């Protein structure tokens, strides 16, 4: 039986959901890092990054309206390209999202420290404490509150606009000279780093089945929310650049690294002197909400993979006491704590971006596999415009960004692929006989595609 979801989300609501998922570490933590890579031209990096994410959002939305089951990216790729790609993408997407959450938490710790006078070395411990708290909250379970989310988004956006308007009177225009310090390559590199600032737009896909008139509202909401955020990001980052001494931004962080609180750094002269306090408060609000959403969303990956027999069955178990997927959340929380404790944060941002780019690229291929194989069960209510050009641009854009990130993220992406294949060969393959739409396509188009070949082995919910 269906879960009786009604299509009652309008354009405004989904734009808010999307913006809420985007606003976070990308704007509150990453501008200083981007400045270091690209100089004041980091402003363009934020626009470029948005353009690269857009195709992924369109592809994901189409698949979401064809498979209204939670599991997201993992599920689409698994059903399109089989459990091998599913395993790689599932683990990659999971890592990426947990990385992103850990980065948000470290940024959150840094902003919190602006309120109290604690040495910056304590950031890790503050972040660990916050992470433990958020994991515990998720295990106990929280009520869904769309209203609270909308309020947070509105408050944050209003604060960002106020920051820009107020900052425009104070900022020093000569700080934009020279505009480009690291060439166009620097802008692309910076775009690769701040890329995660837009990944939230794909959150729209997770509510796609509840959107009224999806054929019109899904693309409009994606284009609309990304358009708004590109303008907001560009304006905010320009203000950050204009308000701060670049040397301060790139050296005032922990251990002489880039600042993790760039929005607060130059805010002392804003809002009648209370700028640092107000901006930090907003940052804490936005980053907490992002870290929480990240833990919630990333725990869906082990859960969905466990339901498909790609992970041990214990990760799909729902706690009778809390009614939450306790083990999947614990696994996710453990990775989160380990990352915060042992991995330097700047590397986190790179790896999160690299895995995300990888997953987005596979997702475009998944869409192509569905379209070309003509599988019976693939009946999307929303058809992404511009196929296949948009998907090709998405994959190529991703590859270009990936090559600009340095050796470590590339090795990380390769490691992720090898690790995913290894896990599938050792654990997954003996336990599943699912094949994706792709292998049906490759095995000869003259065969009628049978739905049972591509559906999961367990009955759909």
């Amino acid at each position, binding site marked *: 039986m269906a879960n*009786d*979801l*009604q299509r009652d989300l309008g354009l405004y609501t989904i734009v808010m959901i999307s913006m809420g998922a985007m606003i976070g570490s990308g704007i509150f933590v990453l501008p200083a890092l981007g400045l270091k890579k690209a100089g004041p031209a980091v402003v363009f990096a934020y626009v470029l990054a948005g353009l690269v994410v857009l195709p992924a959002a369109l592809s994901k939305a189409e698949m979401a309206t064809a498979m209204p089951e939670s599991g997201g990216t993992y599920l689409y790729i698994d059903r399109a390209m089989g459990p091998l790609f599913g395993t790689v993408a599932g683990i990659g997407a999971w890592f990426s999202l947990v990385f992103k959450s850990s980065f948000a938490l470290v940024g959150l710790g840094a902003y919190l420290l602006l309120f109290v006078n604690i040495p910056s070395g304590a950031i890790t411990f503050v972040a660990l404490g916050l992470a433990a708290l958020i994991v515990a909250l998720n*295990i106990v379970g929280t009520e*869904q509150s769309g209203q609270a989310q909308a309020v947070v988004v509105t408050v944050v956006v209003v604060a960002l606009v106020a920051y820009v308007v107020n900052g425009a009177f104070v900022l020093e225009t000569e700080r934009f000279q020279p505009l480009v310090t690291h060439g166009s390559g620097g802008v692309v590199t910076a775009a690769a780093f701040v890329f995660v600032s837009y990944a939230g737009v794909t959150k729209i896909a997770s509510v796609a089945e509840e959107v009224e008139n999806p054929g019109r509202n899904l693309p409009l909401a994606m284009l609309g929310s990304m358009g708004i955020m590109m303008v907001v990001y560009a304006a905010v980052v320009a203000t950050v650049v204009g308000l701060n001494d670049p040397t301060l931004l790139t050296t005032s962080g922990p251990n002489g690294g880039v600042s993790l609180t760039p929005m607060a750094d130059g805010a002392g002269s804003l809002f009648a002197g209370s700028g640092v306090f107000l901006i930090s408060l907003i940052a804490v609000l936005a980053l907490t909400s992002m870290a929480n959403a990240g833990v919630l969303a990333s725990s869906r990956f082990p859960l969905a993979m466990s339901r498909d027999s790609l992970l041990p069955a214990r990760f799909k178990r*729902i706690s009778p006491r809390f009614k939450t*997927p306790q083990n999947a959340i614990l696994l996710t929380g453990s990775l989160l704590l380990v990352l915060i404790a042992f991995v330097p944060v700047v590397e986190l941002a790179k790896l999160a971006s690299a895995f995300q780019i990888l997953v987005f690229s596979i997702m475009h291929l998944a869409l192509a596999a569905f379209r070309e194989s003509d599988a019976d069960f693939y009946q999307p209510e929303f058809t992404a415009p511009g196929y296949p050009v948009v998907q090709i641009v998405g994959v190529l854009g991703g590859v270009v960004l990936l090559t600009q990130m340095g050796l470590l993220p590339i090795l990380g992406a390769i490691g992720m692929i090898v690790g995913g294949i290894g896990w599938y060969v050792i654990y997954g393959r003996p336990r599943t006989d699912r094949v994706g739409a792709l292998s049906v396509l490759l095995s000869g188009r003259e065969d009628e595609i049978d739905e049972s070949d591509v559906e999961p082995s367990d009955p759909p*919910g």
Partner: protein
Amino acid sequence: MTHRILIPFELPDARPVSRLLIDSLAPMDIVLLGHYGLPEQTPPEAAREEFEDEAQQELDGLAADFTEAGIDVTTRLVFGKDRGKAIDAVADEAGCDAELRPAPTGSIDRVLVPLLDTENLDRLADFVRVLIGESGTEVTLFHVVDAAAETAESEAMLAAARDEMIANGFDAEAVDVAVVEADNRSEAILAQAEAYDAVVIDESHPTVVERIVGELPEMIAQRAVAPVIVVRQLD
């Protein structure tokens, strides 16, 4: 026309409906909805896989209470995060024209009918008739005004409504009217409901405040401990 009423239960460990209330509902078609509430962390299909059997068992147990009273019921089981949404969706799908908010009750001797206007009076009266059956139950038509100046107009509306009900077969002795002046309609209805055994009310679209503090019928059922029949709007 036979009415069809939806009775929602919050699983697991739902509170059964009292036999007395079951008997009063007997003339209607009854749809039982088992709603298994989930936190936002849990995808419904994963919870269904895990808890469906025991939830269905519990729902069947609740349905057995009705079967024993000689009433046929249909059951629906939903796993979800938004109870109000699930209730509305199932009510739509199953063609229910009313929803029950159950509450413990003894015999139903006094029924409160808060009115905004008389548009839906026929249907409200129908449900009142079902509830009171042949017994000499007392029915109060109730209206809240914000200003004393509106009292006369309000009394006239209620008097007309009362006449109409009497013309349709209600005992003149049994139907009375009450007008109260208050700033907060919900609070006034809640206070009035304390003295009644059941409430029949029009569905209204919840205000922002209601969304946060809880919807009126739910609050009546809990605070005034009176079962509420919410008569749905027909589009």
